[in-house]
């Protein structure tokens, strides 16, 4: 069990992880209804009648990667704010509330300008401005009906109200009993047309607590720093949650500008999977989501990461037990050879007989867990990761050495036919486990639609995996697993052995 728990924990550190391959699954593909609404919003509906429920999802093609240096964390802040209601949900009287909210915003911008001033504003001035801001906040608070959006959905049977912001996307996803499709459409249309970012400054405090929570473990602290070492120009360098000073600095006006730019119909995809009839569902969805303003598809440019010149290494001394992450830059998800990277990750880290588990856990006994992942950063060139959790008394360096030995073998000796066959069988079963539930299907349809331009590519992964040869694996391994393309992150248990 502990092995399983640990694997799960590491998987959860990233947004999600799966490896795909399938043979056909034509029936599912044929059931997908696809439509682009006149406003440009893409809709996918996939009926599955196992139980009278459905999962609905809005995928915004924007994530942490689209932020700017001085406003990190903005994508995630907006995601939180999308739960605060609209002009009609979450308010006692919107007309009056709007006046009060504008006053709050004016007071904050004044306060912020004073805080940003160089040389510094006087303490007295700051105090007075803070006082004014807090009074305005209190005044606005009287019009708020707290968490009404969540309350309506929970009352109607939503078991999993949630959303997530990743490097590459922001996804709002939850389920309802299947007779409430219209409620879903009405709620989503309302919050992505008329969002009111009330209680904005309170919610930022919540997000700062979320940040602190993530930093309460050494692994969380290491990964935060690690990305900034692995990337120097590309925005994957900044972990989605943002830095504290930016969180403090961002205003409601900033978040509203973010919404105006990124949440237009042309940048959104809606997916419904579950017990719905597409012929009746599509008009309902169109009636509501069709009203979201069309807008333009925003520019996707993000500073490119230049080729890495030398190995980079970050060693974090910490009282916690050791941990190792080794990363190599790899191409984006839509690279024609992406399946080869997935294949390498699976041969190295998938299952009890995988190369890393066999070598590091079973034979050398240097790690209690070792794995390989391709999922960090997809839209733009991302990272191929190796992770290891050293056994008691073993160090991250012991694991690092053992991982390099396995990488060397991969570069010099072809993988066996046996391994290739296993890879393909596992890919098929993993694929089934990914799509045998409404959530997994909805999310993956949206991801493939947005990152590859066509949801149908989800079902082509099998063919791609099937075509992977031992030569491909050796070639790619030799291409990316080179020292100068590598970043190593280590949690090193601080040792005061001098005291003994």
């Amino acid at each position, binding site marked *: *069990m*502990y092995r*399983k728990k640990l694997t799960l924990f590491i998987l959860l550190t990233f947004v999600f992880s799966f490896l795909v391959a399938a043979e056909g699954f034509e029936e599912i593909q044929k059931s997908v209804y696809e439509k682009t609404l006149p406003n440009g919003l893409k809709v996918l509906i996939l009926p599955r009648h*196992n*139980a*009278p*429920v459905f999962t609905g999802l809005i995928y915004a093609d924007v994530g942490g990667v689209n932020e700017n240096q001085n406003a990190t964390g903005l994508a995630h802040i907006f995601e939180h704010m999308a739960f605060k209601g609209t002009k*009609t949900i979450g308010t006692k009287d919107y007309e009056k509330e709007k006046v009060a909210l504008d006053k709050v915003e004016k007071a904050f911008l004044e306060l912020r300008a004073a805080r940003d001033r160089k040389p510094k504003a006087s303490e007295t001035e700051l105090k007075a401005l803070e006082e004014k801001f807090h009074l305005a906040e209190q005044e606005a608070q009287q019009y708020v009906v*707290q968490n009404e959006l*969540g*309350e*309506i959905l*929970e*009352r*109607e*049977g*939503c*078991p999993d*109200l949630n959303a997530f912001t990743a490097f590459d996307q922001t996804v709002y996803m939850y389920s309802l*009993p299947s*007779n409430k499709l*219209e409620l879903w459409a*009405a*709620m989503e249309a*309302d919050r992505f047309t008329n969002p009111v970012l009330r209680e904005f400054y*309170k919610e*930022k*405090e*919540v*997000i700062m*607590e979320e940040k*602190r*929570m993530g930093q*309460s*473990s050494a692994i969380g602290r290491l990964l935060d720093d690690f990305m900034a070492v692995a990337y120097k120009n590309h925005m994957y360098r900044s972990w989605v949650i943002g830095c504290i000073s930016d969180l403090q600095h961002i205003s409601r006006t900033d978040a509203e500008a973010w919404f105006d730019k990124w949440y237009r119909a042309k940048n959104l995809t809606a997916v419904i999977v579950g*017990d719905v009839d597409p012929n009746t569902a599509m008009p309902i969805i169109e009636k509501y989501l069709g009203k979201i303003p069309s807008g333009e598809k925003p520019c996707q440019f993000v500073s490119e990461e230049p080729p890495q010149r030398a190995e980079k290494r970050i060693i974090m001394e*910490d*009282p*916690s*037990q050791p941990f190792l992450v080794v990363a190599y830059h790899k191409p984006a998800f839509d690279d024609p050879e992406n399946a080869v990277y997935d294949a390498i990750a699976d041969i190295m880290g998938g*299952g009890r*007989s*995988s190369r890393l588990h*066999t070598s590091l856990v079973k034979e050398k*006994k240097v790690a*209690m867990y070792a794995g390989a992942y391709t999922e960090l950063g997809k839209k733009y060139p991302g990272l191929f990761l190796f992770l290891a959790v050293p056994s*008691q008394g073993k160090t991250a360096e012991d694991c690092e050495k053992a991982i390099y030995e396995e990488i060397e073998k991969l570069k010099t000796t072809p993988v066996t036919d*046996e391994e290739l*066959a*296993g890879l393909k*069988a*596992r890919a*098929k*079963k993993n694929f089934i486990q990914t799509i*045998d539930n409404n959530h997994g299907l909805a999310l993956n349809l949206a991801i493939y639609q947005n990152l590859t331009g066509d949801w149908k590519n989800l079902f082509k992964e099998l063919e791609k995996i099937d075509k992977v040869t031992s030569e491909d694996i050796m070639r790619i391994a030799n291409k990316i697993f080179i020292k100068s393309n590598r970043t190593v992150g280590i949690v090193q248990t*601080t040792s*005061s052995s*001098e*005291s*003994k």
Partner: protein
Amino acid sequence: MAKKLLCIILLVISAFTLMAQEKPKRVVDNLVFPKLNDIAPPPVTEFNLSNGIVVMVVEDHDFPTVNIRAMVKGGKVAELLEKNGLSDLFGEVLRSGGTKNMKSDDIDKYLDRIGASIESYSEESAIILYGDCLKENADEVLKLFADFLTSPAFEDEKIELSKTQLRSMISRRNDEPMKVVTREINKILYGKDSPYARQIEYWDVDNLKKEDLIDYHKKYFRPDMTYIAVWGDFSTSDIKDKLEKYLGGWKSEGAKPEIVLPSIPEQKYSVNQIEKNDVEQTSIFMGNLGLRYDDPDYAATYIMSEILGGGFSSRLFKKVRTEMGLAYGAGSFMSPEFDRKGMFYFYTSTKPSTTSKALSAMLDEIKKIREAPVTDNELKIAKEGFLNRFAFQFDSTDKLVNRMLTYKFYNYPTDFNKKIRDAVEKVTKEDVQRVAQRYLLPEKLTIVALGKVKEFDEPLSKYGTVNIIDITIPKGKKVEMAVNPEAEKKALEIIKKAVKAIGEPAFNSLKDFYSDGKLINDGQEIPYKSYLLFPDKYAVEFLFGEEILKLAIDGSSAMMFQGIQKAPMPESEAADIRQAMLTEGGGLLLFKEILEGKLKAQYVKEGTFAGNPAELVAVQTKELPLLLFFDKKSGLLQAIRSEDMGEKGKEDVVEIYKNFKDFQGLKIPQDIVINTNNEPKASSKIWKVKINSGISPDFFKK
């Protein structure tokens, strides 16, 4: 007539105006939902194999896979305290140790080759074995699955591997703050030795043997203790034949073993604090005794718990997160069990400077829900939410069949979830208040907070006497000291004699102790200064040229300082320093703690040390058991022996005190030699001692 018409027109107009003035209703309030499609789960077929194994089968042809899960009575509750950790080890090695028909590594390769998996683990009241495969491999995988149940091999090498993994888990168990807090609160709520809460120590792992696994398997793994569910793409009759073929011949022998469930202790109010300085937030957990699933109060209690801390609309979430902005997560949940009472938990995590603020807000909410009835709207949201979510209990075959299997395993009716639904429909506001008053007991609450104690906005003592929980991971061997008043009395006499020998008046007036010396290790000399301020502060400064490394214990906190940098000490090092603190100056603090009853000491026997007659006394400290050698003639403490975990496993460490010299009326050993596995490994020499020089308590903080 015209007048009448005018009246009508006026009436219509005014009606229109009224309508126009009324605020337009929101779209979401006007939606009319169609009738929900029927919940039509696939049929579950239940039967017994010829040997009595209970089997539940569901056909699901959506995807070409077959899934299987077995629950065997046993688990943590079936293991003896003397074999703590056995079920955890069993849960791992059942699968990893191979079968009598196939070697473990070959199984791993085989299963990976066909994209199948079989895994196992231990729960509190069951051992679970589960697996899945593509349908074309169902026959071989079912056979293998049956082999794991009936004839596991427990290969020696894999037992060792799992023991290494268990030890690694122990070494890492304090790295995740929320895990620490939940573990510690359960040790208080259930009792530290309860199988529902107890933690495994290194010595427990050392104590587990292959025979224990074989015995455990023999005792609990039998058809009349085994329940199996199979679901996926197959025909029921075919699966039935296969299970009969591979498992039907397995026989139960002898009487069915009794599993006695542990009792749950009476709950008491307590405030508990864990100091941890490498975290950004304070983790707060509180607990109260809850109830079993089949308790008649379950439905009302569930609704109460939802209103108090269940989701976005709950009181705790609204108060602590939305309104006060103090936390990302805040709420409560109950953990009912099928065979015992579970607990109510209340949790949040917040920055150190708002610890007490968040804790007070939570306590207020607990009180409020007891004192006044919930609102109609709250009751409505909670009840409708539950009833509307009911359909989700059937949205996967996996959920459906495992729920049925679990009901069967714990002898609950198969439609138990429907009974709960009916009960929830009937819950009233009065019910909610009644169960709040019955189960939420502020005067019996257990409160645990972990974090940077020194940065809390208010000390926890505001909430009552604070128990300090030490989460240091104990090393070495456990010595169970049986109660033996005779041996304890004798030990005290020996200690008193030693105190006389070093100078009783000076010892009794000790407030602080300073020494200056050098440590010699592998030929390298490191000058150091040590500071001991009774009763709980200690620091050692090592001088590396210009650099000073300072290690300081201040009550429960252990910090390292170097220049302007400071960091919490890792636990193993903190434990070493605590040990050094006890033995400083030849055991000054050790003597004090034994004389004050803080540490337990027992006389062992008379023996010899370095050829001279000696009295042997055993002491159990938090980290390690120590064996003390006192010279029979002079009464002086001559040596301390302990077993420690070194880089190459267990080490026998003996610290020898020599060359006693009088400093301000106190005899202190000037030379200390440290032997490891009978080889002198290090030594130290003291040349200066100052007693009661007035060391400031602040010295240990920076």
